[in-house]
């Protein structure tokens, strides 16, 4: 009995010693202060090696000081380094070799591929990233139209001290601009791996304009749409007519076929992409006044219902019908026409529906004829018509998509006129003036 008690005590002590040893720390112990946090990764084609990898690190001391544009001693809130390397992970090894802290990717917000690299194919890099434990699935995938390195070097946010927050907020802005998309790594990966859709990435670039005098519509996409002047969505990243402190910008989407970039969408096409995929939240949409020439009406458009798609095969070609239901509030009527009035509102609704339908049709036809990429994932609706995976695979949807034809039905309802319910003229010495 005494022996049993002693044995129990000894066992308890041994177990406690074992457990305390385990809880005191382990091989994987890493102090927060000993890590260098990457917030952006840029990948370009290398000159001396396969890849040129640029890493942007957060400088926590500068961010913590809360000084605009850096710390109290003029510290920058981020630093950038570039290496040439055969692979992403070997590049990290090289960087670890010359910076004092260990590189940590768990706070990386974006990964930027140069257009040149994307056009050669990035599937192998996406796979390597998905395999890595530190990469977050919600980091954004960007394609820099020029160079990823240049883009990262030009990310100098003036309204944000923390560059990581800048990326987060800037890349989520599609929810209220409609000009980029939710191109998180997980979405990109799932779209790319799906047999029913193709992937997209946010287009990024460094703005080229130095002064307002340099502005030109030469790089706008308005000409392709037979417009004499560009609307706000008729641009791609790098060509937005603007000057200011921040030179980096995002606008539009890069379209992929598998892992290879095959084309670009401008801001307006991106808005239609969002509407077709049900990711559109709300944004301002400018359209020509239906009655008065050269005047605009601006609507705040929202999409409260998911789009309805119907895909069927007709004579061996896919026939796609899409119904988009939108709500809108009036923001501006430059002509002063009383479109708010219940008897006139249908004129504006019809004009907006026609405008969006036309633009959407042009965009969808581009995806078949020029891009040959089902970015709107109509294949998902087709897939449900098959019973087994073998039948679906043999159908080869992605190959057939190029023959698809579309019927678009936009149903837009104007709900509210803003704070003005009747447009009235201003009065001058010349009489009534509306504009």
């Amino acid at each position: 009995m005494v022996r049993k008690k002693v044995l129990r005590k000894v066992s308890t002590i041994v177990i406690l010693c074992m457990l305390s040893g385990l809880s005191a720390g382990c091989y994987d112990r890493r102090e927060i202060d000993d890590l260098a946090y990457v917030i952006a990764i840029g990948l370009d084609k290398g000159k001396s090696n396969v890849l040129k990898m640029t890493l942007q690190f957060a400088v926590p001391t500068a961010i913590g000081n809360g000084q605009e544009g850096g710390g109290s001693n003029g510290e920058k809130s981020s630093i950038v380094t570039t290496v040439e390397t055969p692979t992403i992970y070997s590049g990290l090894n090289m960087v670890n070799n010359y910076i004092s802290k260990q590189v940590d990717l768990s706070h990386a917000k974006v990964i930027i591929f140069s257009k040149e690299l994307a056009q050669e194919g990035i599937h192998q890099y996406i796979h390597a990233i998905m395999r890595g434990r530190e990469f977050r699935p919600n980091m954004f995938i960007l394609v820099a139209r020029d160079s990823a390195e240049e883009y990262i070097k030009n990310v100098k946010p003036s309204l944000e001290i923390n560059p990581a927050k800048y990326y987060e907020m800037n890349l989520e802005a599609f929810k209220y601009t409609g000009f980029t998309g939710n191109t998180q790594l997980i979405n990109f990966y799932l779209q790319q791996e799906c047999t029913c859709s193709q992937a997209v990435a946010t287009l990024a670039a460094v703005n080229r304009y130095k002064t307002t005098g340099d502005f030109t519509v030469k790089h706008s996409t308005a000409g392709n749409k037979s417009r004499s002047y560009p609307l706000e969505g008729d641009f791609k990243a790098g060509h937005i007519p603007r000057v200011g402190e921040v030179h980096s910008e995002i606008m539009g989407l890069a379209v992929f076929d598998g892992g290879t970039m095959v084309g670009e969408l401008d801001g307006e096409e991106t808005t239609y992409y969002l509407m077709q995929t049900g990711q559109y939240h709300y944004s301002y949409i400018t359209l020509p006044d239906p009655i008065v020439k050269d005047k605009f009406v601006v609507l705040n458009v929202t999409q409260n219902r998911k789009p309805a798609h119907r895909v069927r095969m007709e004579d061996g070609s896919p026939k796609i019908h899409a119904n988009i239901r939108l709500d809108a509030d009036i923001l501006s009527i430059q002509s002063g026409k009383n479109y708010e009035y219940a008897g006139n509102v249908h004129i504006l609704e019809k004009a907006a529906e026609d405008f969006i339908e036309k633009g959407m049709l042009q965009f969808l036809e581009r995806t078949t004829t020029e891009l040959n990429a089902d970015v709107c994932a109509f294949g998902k609706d087709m897939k449900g018509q098959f019973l087994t995976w073998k039948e679906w695979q043999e159908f080869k949807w992605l190959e057939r998509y190029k023959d698809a034809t579309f019927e678009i039905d936009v149903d837009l309802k104007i709900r509210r006129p803003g704070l003005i319910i009747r447009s009235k003229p201003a009065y001058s010495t010349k009489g009534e003036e509306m504009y």
Partner: protein
Amino acid sequence: MENKMVFGKWEAITLLMNMISTKIVLNFQRKVAEDAGTAGWILTIYISVLALLGFMVIEKLYAEFEGKDLLDIGEYIGGTVGRVMIGSVIFIFLVYIVTVVLREFSENLKIVTLTVSPISFVSLFFLAGMIVGAYLGLEALVRLHAIAIPVLTVTFLFISFAISQYFNISRIMPIFGTGLRNIFVGGFTKVSIFAELLILFLIVPYIRTHKNFKTVGYTSLFIAGFSLTMSSLIFLLVFPYPAAIEGFLPMYQLSRLINYGRFFQRVESVFVFTWGIVALLYLSAGFYFIVFTFKKTFNLTYYQPLIIPFAILIYTMSFLPPNLDSTVILETKYFRNTAWLVTFVMPIVILLIAKTIKKRKKEVKHSNG
């Protein structure tokens, strides 16, 4: 002395629930996607129904052997030889799966969080839990299950709801995946997913009545079947086939996607904690039944002296597979295709023989009387 210990239905149900459903945090969802494609969840429903049918047959046969575990019945059939034969089969069965799962959990933990630590060190965490659990005995283990399983269930329900923003019904299309033949003919052996039901046939003396046995069996099978089906459905609604078979650790991959604003993300850290508890509960209960089976098979008085030698044995054997993939194959390809023979066929055969013997004995007694 030990057989006087009893526990309630709830404790037994939670024990079996955890033993059967642990694979949710391992590779189950990926494996059913590999077997049936987009119809992985239909395959899970099918094998759950098969498991319920199998248990229905066993439960009917068991009615005449209330309070007896499989080893007792083995002894009834063939004396010591019968007990040793059946005990040895169960012992090998348990050693195999506990060894493989110990390695799997350790490897997974190394991939997910303890990347630098040697695998032998990571395994020690689980081994310590297994040893302590076995020393504390079955009563402590089942009571711990009764407390922990509701908490773990809530955690997994939370992950499942939080991930719902990624659900897309088109991802489970085409509805019959790799085909009806693959699901209903090829999928038959996958009923081995419910292999741990065997534990129920070892705890019969502790849950006393046949009514309790029935309730525990049906309830735990139903809940486990439901959990397995929901987990495979949720996984396939998020990860489209064939991407679904590409990723490792489905539940971990799902928890990594949870992201509500800038302040609510990185939930997988909670998942890893929960996952560790599930692993500890599974391994400690599994290890207890190894030493318990050995003790009962060879009619030993105490099981405690077996704990350390068996722990060392299992720890060492867990390092035999050269890598993680070989370990996963040992479980999914071999064990999960053949274990149904031990869990369902063996008890049915034993019970049928025992029933025949009992009937004959009755007839002999009747004719003599």
